[in-house]
C-alpha cells in the first residue's frame, strides 16, 4: 500500500526531475562499450587528481602525494598514457573479438606497467631523498588506475565469453609478471617491499602459520561437517535443530567467540594435564582453531546436505536395483553427484576462514593478522598493508583455486 502511494508520488515528480530521453538505453552513439569508457574515465581521474605515490621522510609519517608525471620517467609515462588512449579507442570501436582482445592485452599490460612504474618512482625518489629512512608508498592514484585497468581486463574477458583456460592464463601471466618484477629488484624501494625485506623470515613463518590454521580448521570441519550433513539429510528434523544452532553460532562476531573460548579452554587445560601436554591453551592456536572449526561447520554440513538432496531418487533407486549396497550407493553414486555443491561449500569456508584467522592474531594465534595489528599499534601503515594485502591475495588465490577445482568436477560430471 505504501509502495502504491510512493509510486504515485514518484511518477508525478520523476519526469520533471529526470526527463526521460526519447532514446534511452544506448547513450551517446559514439561510445560502443560504456563499461570500458567508464573505467577509462576512472583511470584518467586517478592519474590526474590523485598522487601516484606518497613520499615520506620515514615510515611513521604520512607522505605527501607525488603526481604520476613527477614520479615516473618519460618512457613509463608514455606507456601508461598510450595504454589509456588504446583503451579509450577500444571503447569507441564497434563490438568485435579484435576490440575485446586488444582491451584484454592492454588492460593486463597496464596492470604490470603501473606496478613497474610505482617501483621506478620509488627508486627515483629514494635517489633524491636526504636520508635512507625515506619511504615511498603506493598512492590513491596508483590504486584507482590499478582497479580500473584490472576491471578493463575483466570486462574484456566477460565480453570474449572466455573459458576457464583463458581466465587462468590471464591471471597466471599477471602473477608471473608481478613476481618477475619483484625478483628483478624493480619494486624493492617501495615501502611495502622494505617492510617485507625487514622481516622476510617472520613473514614466511606467519604466512605458513596462517595457512596451517586455515587448513587445519577446514580439515576438521570436513571430518565433522560431512557426517553431520549426511545425518541431516537422512533425518531432516534433527538437521533443522543442528543447522539452527550452527547458524546462531555463525552470527557471533569472531573476536567475541575467540574471547569466549579463552576461559573454558584454560580451565580445561588446567583440569586435564594430558590436554595441556598436547598444547591446549586458553590463548593461542587452540581457541583460534576451535572457533574457526565452529564457523566452518555450517557451510560444510549444509552444502553436504544440499548436495545429497540434489541427487534424484530415481538414480538412487536405479543403483539399488543394480544390487549396490547402501555404502556403495553413497560413495559411488551420491557423493560424486553431490561433489560440486560440497566443493562450493569448501570454497566459502576456506575464504571465510582466511579472513577470520586475521582476527585470531589478537588472541596470540599468530598468522598474517600479527602484522596488521602490530602495524595498527605502531601507526606503521605499510606494515598494516603488508598483512592486509597478503591476506587478500591469499583469499583470492584460494577462491580461484576452488573455482578451478569446481570447473574440473563439473566438467567430469
Amino acid at each position, binding site marked *: 500500500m505504501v509502495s502504491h502511494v510512493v*509510486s504515485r508520488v*514518484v511518477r508525478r515528480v520523476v519526469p520533471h526531475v529526470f526527463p526521460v530521453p526519447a532514446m534511452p538505453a544506448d547513450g551517446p552513439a559514439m561510445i560502443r562499450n560504456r563499461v570500458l569508457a567508464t573505467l577509462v574515465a576512472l583511470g584518467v581521474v586517478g592519474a590526474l587528481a590523485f598522487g601516484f605515490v606518497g613520499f615520506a621522510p620515514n615510515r611513521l609519517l604520512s607522505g605527501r602525494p607525488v603526481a604520476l608525471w613527477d614520479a615516473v620517467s618519460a618512457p613509463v609515462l608514455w606507456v601508461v598514457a598510450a595504454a589509456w588512449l588504446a583503451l579509450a579507442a577500444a571503447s569507441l570501436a564497434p563490438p568485435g573479438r579484435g576490440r575485446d582482445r586488444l582491451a584484454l592485452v592492454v588492460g593486463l599490460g597496464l596492470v604490470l606497467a603501473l606496478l613497474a612504474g610505482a617501483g621506478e618512482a620509488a627508486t627515483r625518489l629514494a635517489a633524491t631523498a636526504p636520508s635512507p629512512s625515506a619511504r615511498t608508498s603506493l598512492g590513491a592514484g596508483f590504486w584507482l588506475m590499478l582497479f580500473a585497468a584490472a576491471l578493463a581486463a575483466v570486462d574484456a574477458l566477460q565480453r570474449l565469453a572466455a573459458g576457464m583456460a583463458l581466465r587462468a592464463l590471464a591471471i597466471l601471466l599477471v602473477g608471473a609478471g608481478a613476481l618477475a618484477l619483484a625478483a628483478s629488484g624493480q619494486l624493492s624501494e617501495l615501502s611495502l617491499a622494505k617492510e617485507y625485506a625487514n622481516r622476510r623470515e617472520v613473514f614466511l613463518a606467519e604466512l605458513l602459520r596462517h595457512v596451517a590454521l586455515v587448513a587445519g580448521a577446514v580439515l576438521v570441519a570436513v571430518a565433522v561437517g560431512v557426517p553431520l550433513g549426511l545425518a541431516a539429510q537422512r533425518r531432516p528434523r534433527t538437521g533443522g535443530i543442528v543447522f539452527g544452532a550452527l547458524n546462531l553460532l555463525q552470527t557471533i562476531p569472531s573476536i567475541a567467540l575467540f574471547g569466549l573460548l579463552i576461559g573454558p579452554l584454560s580451565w580445561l587445560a588446567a583440569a586435564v594435564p594430558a590436554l595441556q601436554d598436547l598444547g591446549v591453551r586458553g590463548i593461542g592456536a587452540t581457541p583460534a582453531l576451535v572457533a574457526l572449526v565452529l564457523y566452518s561447520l555450517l557451510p560444510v554440513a549444509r552444502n553436504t546436505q544440499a548436495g545429497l538432496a540434489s541427487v534424484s531418487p530415481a538414480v538412487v533407486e536405479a543403483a539399488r536395483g543394480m544390487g549396490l549396497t547402501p555404502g556403495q550407493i553413497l560413495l559411488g553414486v551420491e557423493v560424486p553427484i553431490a561433489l560440486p555443491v560440497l566443493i562450493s561449500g569448501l570454497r566459502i569456508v576456506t575464504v571465510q576462514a582466511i579472513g577470520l584467522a586475521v582476527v585470531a592474531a589478537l588472541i596470540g594465534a599468530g598468522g598474517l593478522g600479527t602484522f596488521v595489528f602490530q602495524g595498527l599499534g605502531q601507526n606503521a601503515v605499510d606494515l598494516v598493508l603488508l598483512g592486509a594485502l597478503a591476506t587478500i591475495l591469499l583469499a583470492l588465490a584460494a577462491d580461484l583455486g576452488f573455482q578451478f577445482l569446481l570447473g574440473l568436477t563439473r566438467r567430469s560430471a
Partner: protein
Amino acid sequence: MPAGTTDRILPTAPAEGQRRAAVLASPLVWLALALVALVLFMPATEPLFRALFPELARPVYTRASFLALAVSHIGLVAASSLAAVVAGLAAGLFVTRRAGREFLPIVQAIAAIGQTFPPVAVLAISVPLIGYGAAPTLVALTLYGVLPILGNTIAGLETVSPAAREAARGMGFPPLRRLLEVELPLAAPVIMAGIRTSVIINIGTATVGSTVGALSLGSPIIEGLSGNNTAYVVQGAVVVGLLAIVTDLLFERLERRLTPGRR
C-alpha cells in the same frame, strides 16, 4: 533452500492468550531482554565476576558504560548499513534496468570478487587512507556492507519470473509501477537476506573496529586481551554476541514476513 519450510502455520487471528503465549515462548524476546538487562546493569554483575575471577582487582569494565558502548556500536552499524542499503539498492536497480544492463556483468564480478576480501583486511586498509577513529570503521563497514546487498538485489530482481513482469506490463503498469509494485515486492525476501548478511558481518567488523580507535562493544574485549583481563573479554563478548543473535532473529522474522504466503 526456502526459508522456514518447517514453520507451523498459525491461524490468521490468534486469540489474545495464544498470542501472549507465543511471545513468551519466543527465544527472541528472552534474548532481547537479557541483552537490554546486561547493557543497562552490567555493574550489578560485579559479585559474579569477582567470584569467577578472584585474582582481578577490577572485574567489571568501567572505562565506558556498556550503554555508551552499545549505542556507539549500534550507531556505527546502523549508519553504515543505511548507506550500504541505499548504495546497494541503487546500483542493483541501475544494472537491472535497460539503461544500465551493460554494466550488469562487471558489477556482478565486482560484488563477487569483493566479497572474497576479508572484512578485517578492508578495515585495516582504510586506516592508511583515512586515519584512526570511527571514520575508517564507518567507511569500511559501508564499503563491505554494499556487496551482499548489491549481489542479492541483482539476484532477487533477476529471479522475478518473466511471466510476472509480462502480466504487469499487460495490465498497463508503467515501468516505475512495475518496479515498485511487482518486481521489488517479489525480490524483497532475497534483498532482505542480503541486508541481513551485511548487517551481521558489520556487527562483527565494528567489534574489531575498536582496534582502529572506534568506540564499540569490542573495546572491552580488546582491552581485556591486551591487559590480561578475561572478565572484560567475557563481558564484551557476551553482550556483542547477544546483539548479533537478537539482530539475526529479528531479521529472520522480517524475512519471513516479506515472503509471500508466509506470516
